[in-house]
C-alpha cells in the first residue's frame, strides 16, 4: 500500500470532488466533513510519500498504468516536490477547516458545489507538483486555473469582470506554456521531464534557437501565471474581490505552485548551466525581480483595502522568489525554495487573519483594523506574527528566507537585488506598522486626541468578539508553523532543500 501513496495524494481529493458534486441533499455539514476527510487523506499520503523519499534519499517514481516512463506518464516525488505537496495539502486542509463559517456565508446555496471546486483546485495543484510529464502539468494547470475562475467568480458583483480578465490572461499564460511544450516536443520528441532533460543536454540542442524559444515561452507562460511584475495586473483585482475562503485558498497557493513549476522547468527540465549561459536574457531577470519586489511593496503601501494590499505584497514576494532563482547561486536557490514554503504559510496566515477580521467587522478597508487588539486579541497576535514574517523579523521563517536570498545575492554580487530586498522589507515594515498603529490604538478620533497626558483618555469600551473556534484553530496552527519553520530552518534546508540544489550553481 505504501507504494501507492503518491497517486493517492491526487486521487483522494479528486474522488472527494466527484462525490461532493452529488451530495447536495445531505446538507452543508456533510459536505464539509467530506472535504475535510479528503484533504486529511491527501495530507496523510503526502506525508507518507515524503517519508518514502527521506527513507531512500532519492526520488520516488510512480508509473501510471504500469507503463515505463517515456511512454507512459509518471509521478516523480523528490525532496522538493515532496515538501511542496505537504505544503499544498496542509494549507488546503487548514483553509478547509477555516471555511466552516465563511464558506457558508459566501455560498448560501450550492455549498457542496463550491467545495467540489475547492477540492478540484487542490487536486490540480497537487497534481502539478507531483507530475513528471510536461503535458500532464499543462492539463492540471488548466484544471486548477478553471476551478479558480469558478471560485473567484463567486465573489461580489465586480468579481465577474476581474475574473474575466484573469481568465483571458490565464489562458494566454497557459497557452504560452503549451506552445513552449510544443516547441520542445518538436525538438525532442518526448514529453517526460527526465527523458527530455537527457535529450536536451545534447550539444546540438543546447545551441538550438527553437529550444531557446521553447524555454522562453514556457517561462513567460509561468510568469504570467504567477503574476510576476509587469505581468501582474490581473491578480490584485481578481483576488481581492473573492470570497474569504477562496482568497485564503488561492492567494497563498496558486502563485507558489507556479514558482515551483518555474524552478522545475529551469533546473530539472533544463539545467542551471543552460539557463545561465545559453539564455541571453537571463541576467536581466534580476532587475525584473528587483522591480517586482520594490514596486509590489510600494503599490501595497498605497492600498486601503486590506486584501488588495496583501495581494500586492504577494506580487513583491514573487519578485523575491524569482530573483532568488535567477541569481544563480546555491544560497539563492535555497532562499527561493525555502521562501515558497515560508511565503505559503505567512500569506495564508495573513489572509486568514484578515478574513476573520472582515468576517467579524464586515469591513474590508483598513478601518476594519480599528481596536482589533481589544476586540480580537488572538487574531491580532496571529496577524502580527504573519506581518513580522513578511517584514522579516527573526525568528519567523520570513527572516531566514530573506537571509538566504540576501546571502545568495551578495555572493553573486547582485547588489540591485540586495537593495530591492531591503527596501521591500522596510516598506513592508511601514505598511504593517501603519496597520498595527490603527489596530493597537484605534483611530485618533475614536480615542480622543486631546490632552497630552495619557491618563485622560480611557480606551473605548469595545466588545470582545473573537473569531469563532473553527477559524481560530487553523489560524493558530498556521501562525505556529510560521515560527516553527523558522526555528527549524536548518533541518528543512538540510533534509529537504539541499538535496534539490541543482548542479552547476
Amino acid at each position, binding site marked *: 500500500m505504501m507504494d*501507492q501513496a503518491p*497517486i493517492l495524494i491526487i*486521487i483522494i481529493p*479528486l*474522488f472527494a470532488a*466527484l*462525490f461532493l*458534486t*452529488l451530495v447536495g441533499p445531505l446538507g452543508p455539514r456533510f459536505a464539509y466533513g467530506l472535504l475535510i476527510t479528503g484533504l486529511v487523506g491527501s495530507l496523510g499520503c503526502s506525508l507518507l510519500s515524503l517519508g518514502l523519499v527521506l527513507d531512500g534519499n532519492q526520488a520516488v517514481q*510512480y*508509473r*501510471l*498504468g*504500469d*507503463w515505463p516512463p*517515456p*511512454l*507512459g*506518464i509518471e509521478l516523480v516525488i523528490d525532496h522538493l516536490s515532496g515538501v511542496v505537496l505537504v505544503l499544498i495539502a496542509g494549507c488546503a486542509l487548514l483553509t478547509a477547516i477555516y471555511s466552516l463559517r465563511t464558506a457558508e456565508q459566501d*455560498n448560501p*446555496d*450550492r455549498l457542496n*458545489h*463550491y467545495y*467540489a*471546486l475547492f477540492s*478540484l483546485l487542490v*487536486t490540480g495543484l497537487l*497534481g502539478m507538483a507531483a507530475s513528471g*510529464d510536461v*503535458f*500532464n502539468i499543462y*492539463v*492540471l494547470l*488548466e*484544471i486548477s486555473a*478553471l*476551478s479558480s*475562475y*469558478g471560485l473567484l*467568480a*463567486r465573489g461580489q458583483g465586480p468579481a465577474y469582470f476581474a475574473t474575466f480578465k484573469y481568465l483571458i490572461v490565464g489562458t494566454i499564460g497557459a497557452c504560452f506554456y503549451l506552445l513552449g511544450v510544443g*516547441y520542445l*516536443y*518538436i*525538438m*525532442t*520528441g*518526448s*514529453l517526460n521531464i527526465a527523458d527530455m532533460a537527457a*535529450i536536451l543536454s545534447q550539444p546540438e540542442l543546447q545551441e*538550438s*534557437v*527553437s529550444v*531557446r*524559444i521553447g524555454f522562453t515561452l514556457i517561462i513567460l507562460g509561468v510568469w504570467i501565471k504567477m503574476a510576476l511584475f509587469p505581468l501582474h495586473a490581473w491578480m490584485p483585482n481578481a483576488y481581492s474581490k473573492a470570497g474569504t475562503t477562496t482568497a485564503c485558498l488561492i492567494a497563498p497557493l496558486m502563485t507558489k505552485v507556479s514558482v515551483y513549476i518555474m524552478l522545475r522547468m529551469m533546473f530539472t527540465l533544463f539545467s542551471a548551466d543552460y539557463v545561465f549561459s545559453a539564455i541571453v536574457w537571463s541576467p536581466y531577470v534580476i532587475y525584473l525581480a528587483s522591480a517586482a519586489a520594490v514596486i509590489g511593496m510600494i503599490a501595497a503601501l498605497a492600498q486601503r483595502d486590506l486584501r488588495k494590499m496583501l495581494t500586492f505584497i504577494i506580487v513583491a514576494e514573487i519578485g523575491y522568489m524569482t530573483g532568488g532563482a535567477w541569481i544563480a547561486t546555491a544560497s539563492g536557490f535555497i532562499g527561493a525554495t525555502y521562501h515558497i514554503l515560508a511565503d505559503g504559510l505567512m500569506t495564508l496566515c495573513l489572509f486568514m487573519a484578515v478574513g476573520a477580521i472582515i468576517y467579524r467587522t464586515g469591513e474590508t478597508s483598513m478601518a476594519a483594523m480599528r481596536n482589533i487588539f481589544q476586540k480580537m486579541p488572538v487574531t491580532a497576535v496571529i496577524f502580527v506574527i504573519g506581518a513580522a514574517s513578511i517584514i522579516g523579523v527573526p525568528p519567523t521563517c520570513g527572516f531566514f528566507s530573506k537571509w538566504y536570498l540576501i546571502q545568495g545575492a551578495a555572493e553573486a554580487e547582485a547588489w540591485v537585488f540586495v537593495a530591492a530586498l531591503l527596501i521591500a522589507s522596510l516598506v513592508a515594515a511601514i505598511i504593517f506598522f501603519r496597520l498595527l498603529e490603527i489596530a493597537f490604538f484605534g483611530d485618533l478620533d475614536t480615542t480622543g486626541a486631546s490632552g497630552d497626558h495619557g491618563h485622560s483618555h480611557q480606551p473605548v469600551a469595545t466588545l470582545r468578539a473573537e473569531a469563532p473556534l473553527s477559524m481560530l484553530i487553523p489560524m493558530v496552527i498556521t501562525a505556529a508553523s510560521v515560527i516553527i519553520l523558522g526555528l527549524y530552518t536548518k533541518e528543512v534546508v538540510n533534509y529537504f532543500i539541499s538535496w534539490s540544489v541543482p548542479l552547476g550553481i
Partner: protein
Amino acid sequence: MKQLTFIILIVCALLMLKAAADLPDWADPASPASTHLSPDFLEQGYVETATPNIVTVVLADYRSYDTMFEAVVVFAAALIVMVILRHTPRKRGKTILYRPKREGRDTILQGAAQLIIPVMQIFALYVVGHGHYSPGGGFQGGVIFGASFILIALCFNLRFAIQRFREQGVLVCVAGGVLLYAAIGAICQVMGYNFLGYTGLASILGASDVMARSYGILAVEVGVGITVMSVMVSLYYDLASSGDLDEGL
C-alpha cells in the same frame, strides 16, 4: 495603445518565424517527434492492447492519466458554469425571451428531429464503441450524443428538453462518468497494480492481460462518453437560459 500592441506582436511574430528555420520540415519522417517515441507506440501498441487505433491506445492507456484529467476538465467546466450562472435566486417574472414564443407545433422541424435524433444517438454509441478500430471514441461519441439533446432543445424548446433529461440527472451523469473512469483506475489499484494499470482487470474479467487492456480502454471511453455527453447538455442548458433553466434559446 492598440498600435503599440500591434507593433510588439509583429516583432514577436517575426522573431518566432525567423526561429522557425531551426524546426524540422513539415512531415519530415526523420524529425525527432517522429523518431523518438511514436515508433514505440506504433509498434507495441497493438501488441500490448489488441486495439488497432493507436490514437485510442495512447489516449486511453499510455496516457490515460492525462485523459482522466481531461474528463475532469469538462466536468469542472460544467460545474463552474452551473456555479456561476445558477447561484443567483431566480427573479420571478423576469424570464428573458430570446425568441418570440411560438404557438403550436413546428411540424416539419420537429418531425425531422424525431427522425434524426434516434439515429444520432445510435451513431454516437457506435462511435464510442468503434473507437478501437476507427477514428472515434468517448469524446467524439459523447459530443454527438450531447448534440442530440441540444437538437431536442432547439427544435422543441428548452423546457421540453429539460423534462426529458433533468438537471439532477445531468449532474449525476457528469460526475458519474468521471467516477467510472477513476473507479476503474482504483480497481486496478485494489488488484495490486498501479493506478489505471488495466492488467489488474484481467482476473476480474477472466481475460488475458492484453484483452484486459482492451476492455479497460473501452470502459474508460464509456466513462468519458457519459461525461462529455452530459457536460454538453449541461453547458447548453445553463448558457442558453442564462442559468434560469426555464425558457431559453
